[in-house]
């Protein structure tokens, strides 16, 4: 049964809130500039609350159950983050307040810049990017600007492994650069011979996710970086999987020039149904001056340029510009600050270790039921195949079928059909906050589903059976898109 919409519940004359009476004289309204009507729903306050209560019960978050959505790092979101981000001094701070009135907020930003730089091994960090993909775009614009400044403006190519997230090539196009895809080898590493052949005078740089989207650490990472640097290219590390490496390896130590951090993955700010996130960018010494601004700088009493010591917002000298209206997603910055403060260095490392422990445990317990094409010690996630059952007689099932059946067992399905280099991929990321009991229950469900795939595949193909709705017709949605409700006055 579908839930009626706000508009369907609307009754003319109802109202969920009262506003104060006008306490000043009325001004003349510009009649020719006024709209005729504004058809918003009319509900009582209880109606509004019940509506969203119903909708929340038709949703699934980390709070609801195990959510092994590979690459997305769906770990527990500590509740302290929700409380501190809502402190009035933060929530009501205006982004253009005089700097002396927000020194504490600037200090939080400054410390987080420093902490992220320390964790990643970078010389500078900008908190501007609002998401990982925007961090990528920022980095590509910086790489391009750097190459132009060094007489290398003719370079136009970005090398991207075939296992990369789709955001990498999409960001490359937005930066006005072209993509050259580099294949993976049978061990799930980037193919060194192909990379060597591609490294020439046309290369702006390489984008590399490490651990890669197979959940595997690039075994030849040092050689990869050397090859790219050798041809004058720069190396961008996609930090989407930094949650396996915090406290384990500082990408900057390997010579990586730029990397974004996903605060909503590694530092567990909530995903919010798809956002907001935050994608700060770290830069090496030679690239830090290109970071987007403003960033926070601390001036000391010896700094004669400044009358007052303290924190201030500055634009790096060769900055590519501004990536968002103000200073970045401060609400996420505070949450990540609290997360790092709670954990310290040892705690961050402990998280990485247990994320990797959990993922290897699942791989080992599932690999005989769901084939793992690149079966070696993985990091925080691994990829197996979901096309199980008897495929020879056309009676098998797809990765999608396995995912939909998992819903009946009370689990959120893993990422499916990605990375593209594994057919019917199921990308499973348990995260460190899940217990052994939860992992064992998930293994039991997966193994039961694999048996069902052999014995009664139709059960999977028609799944889910227990959800509020049955499988949805996505083809129909795309063929004749209905992207908004028809308003009451538009109904025939």
């Amino acid at each position, binding site marked *: 049964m*579908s839930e009626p919409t706000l508009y369907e519940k609307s009754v003319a004359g109802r109202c969920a809130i009262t506003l104060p009476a006008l306490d*000043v004289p*009325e001004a003349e309204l510009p009649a020719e500039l006024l709209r005729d009507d504004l058809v918003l729903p009319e509900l009582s306050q209880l109606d509004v609350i019940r509506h969203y209560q119903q909708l929340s019960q038709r949703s699934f978050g980390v709070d609801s159950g195990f959510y092994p959505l590979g690459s997305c790092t769906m770990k527990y979101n500590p509740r302290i983050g929700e409380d501190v981000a809502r402190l009035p001094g933060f929530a009501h701070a205006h982004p253009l307040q005089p700097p002396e009135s927000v020194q504490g907020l600037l200090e939080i930003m400054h410390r987080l810049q420093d902490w992220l730089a320390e964790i990643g091994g970078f010389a500078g960090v900008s908190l501007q990017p609002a998401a990982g993909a925007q961090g990528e775009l920022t980095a590509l614009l910086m790489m391009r600007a750097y190459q132009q400044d060094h007489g290398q403006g003719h370079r136009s190519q970005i090398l991207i492994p075939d296992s990369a997230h789709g955001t990498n090539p999409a960001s490359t196009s937005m930066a006005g650069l072209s993509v050259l895809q580099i294949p993976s080898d049978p061990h799930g590493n980037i193919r060194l011979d192909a990379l060597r052949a591609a490294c020439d005078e046309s290369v702006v740089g390489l984008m590399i996710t490490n651990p890669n989207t197979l959940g595997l650490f690039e075994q030849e990472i040092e050689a990869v970086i050397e090859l790219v640097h050798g041809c004058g290219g720069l190396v961008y590390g996609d930090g989407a999987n930094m949650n396996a490496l915090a406290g384990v390896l500082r990408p900057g130590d390997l010579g990586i020039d730029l990397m974004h951090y996903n605060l909503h993955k590694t530092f567990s700010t909530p995903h919010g149904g798809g956002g907001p996130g935050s994608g700060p960018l770290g830069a090496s010494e030679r690239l830090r001056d290109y970071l987007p601004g403003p960033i926070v700088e601390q001036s000391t009493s010896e700094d004669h340029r400044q009358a007052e010591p303290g924190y201030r917002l500055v634009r790096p000298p060769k900055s590519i510009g501004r990536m968002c209206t103000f200073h970045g997603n401060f609400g996420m910055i505070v949450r990540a600050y609290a997360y790092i403060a709670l954990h310290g260095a040892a705690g961050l490392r402990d998280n990485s270790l247990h994320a990797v422990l959990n993922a290897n445990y699942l791989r080992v317990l599932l690999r005989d039921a769901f084939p793992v094409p690149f079966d070696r010690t993985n990091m925080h996630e691994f990829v197996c195949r979901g096309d199980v059952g008897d495929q020879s007689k056309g009676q098998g099932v797809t990765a999608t079928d396995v995912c939909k059946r998992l819903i009946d067992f009370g689990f959120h399905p893993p990422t499916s059909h990605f990375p593209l280099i594994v057919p019917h991929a199921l990308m499973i990321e348990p995260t460190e906050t899940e217990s052994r009991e939860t992992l064992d229950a998930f293994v039991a469900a997966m193994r039961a589903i694999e048996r069902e795939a052999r014995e009664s595949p139709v059960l999977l193909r028609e799944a889910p059976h227990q959800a509020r709705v049955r499988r949805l017709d996505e083809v129909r949605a795309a063929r004749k898109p209905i992207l908004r409700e028809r308003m009451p006055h538009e109904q025939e």
Partner: protein
Amino acid sequence: MSFVPHTGADRAAMLAAIGVEQIESLFADVPEAFRFPVLDLPPARAELEVTRELQEIAAASSRLRERPGFLGAGSYHHYIPATVDSVLRRGELFTSYTPYQPEIAQGFLQATFEYQSMICELTGMDVSTASHYDGATALAEAVLIALSKSAGRRTKIVASPQLHPQLREVVATYLRGTNAELVTPRAAAADGMEMSSLLDDDTAACIVQSPNYFGQLEPVAELADRVHAVGALLIAVPDPVALGMLRTPGDDGADLVAAEGQSLGIASSFGGPHLGILATKQAHVRRTAGRLVGETVDAKGERGYVLTLSTREQHIRREKATSNICTNAALMALAAAVHLATLGRSGLRRVAELCYHKSHYAAGQIATLPGCVINPQAPDRPFFKEFVVGLPFDAERASRAIESELGVLGGRPLGLDFDDREDQLLLAVTELHTREDIDALVATLRKTVSSGSVSR
């Protein structure tokens, strides 16, 4: 503090299943020379210690927030009904991710579909995306959509000189990746048609913000005609609260709408997270950046919702995608939806009217002060909730006087944005201000004017 639930026994059993002695052995692929660095971070602290530290920092910074201030300039203090945060705190919603599995995400999908519907109604457009990061990035994406329409043949983007300077900066940054150029007329014209002379066959789009950075309304409909005459698209940047009472960009002929949605139930939060609204006419739906939720049916014919037209998106089309956006601002769109549902048909109009009347009352009172002029560069243009005060001295002095006398934010001294506007102060008045707040503002300005008009 740790959120890892493993006991020693758990670890031992799991390591045995994997067949290694210790967890560190799983990291053999990581280059040994760099493995397990010692990080220079402060030692871990307990939840109550971190909470106390942040409470203290927040309290020390809250000096200027006891009562509503007069600073707007792109981020506004409006009343946020209690319903909004009550919904945002629901764990099923805020701890979920993009609804890739629609069967267990019908709630968030429906909420987003309803958001899209209400944004279309508010803006007069046909299609609204599920959300973008903020107003500036929504505008940058709208510009890229306009450029893609001509497949790179048109290379000029004309922006109003009265566009928010920081929105302009973000568009300029995004254009670094294209062959297009952002041009802005040197000065505004009295009739608001200063951009006309720059429009030509090479123009892909024209950006007009209304109310503009200075709070004044632009002749969007007339501009739309001129823009369409050269075959370009008009991108309108409205204030969603103003649309509670004013003609919509859709009515005025805009092709794309990009707006900051923070005023719809979202805290200013030192600049983010905010909400990027992007809405288009039907003709541009397949070029649109960002997620879209569509209605469909399930296997039994029941109504349901899914992410749709995803063949435009990066995870399918990779380098040919219309945008790289993945994470967006879904929860902020939910906040806006709850806000609009709470205010409803009469409420948003009422908020808009309160803003209008109160700001005009404030402007009327300030206009009586010696040497103060309202909207000195365009006194005849209508404004909505924000206006410029031309002062007989440096505007920073006035804003600091308001801050020290009243303990509230004293507006935006425009000298911070423009060299030739040092004596101008941008003030925002919303439904939060009482007549007493406004009278106190006027009294403070009167005192400052009478005491300091001689010295600069």
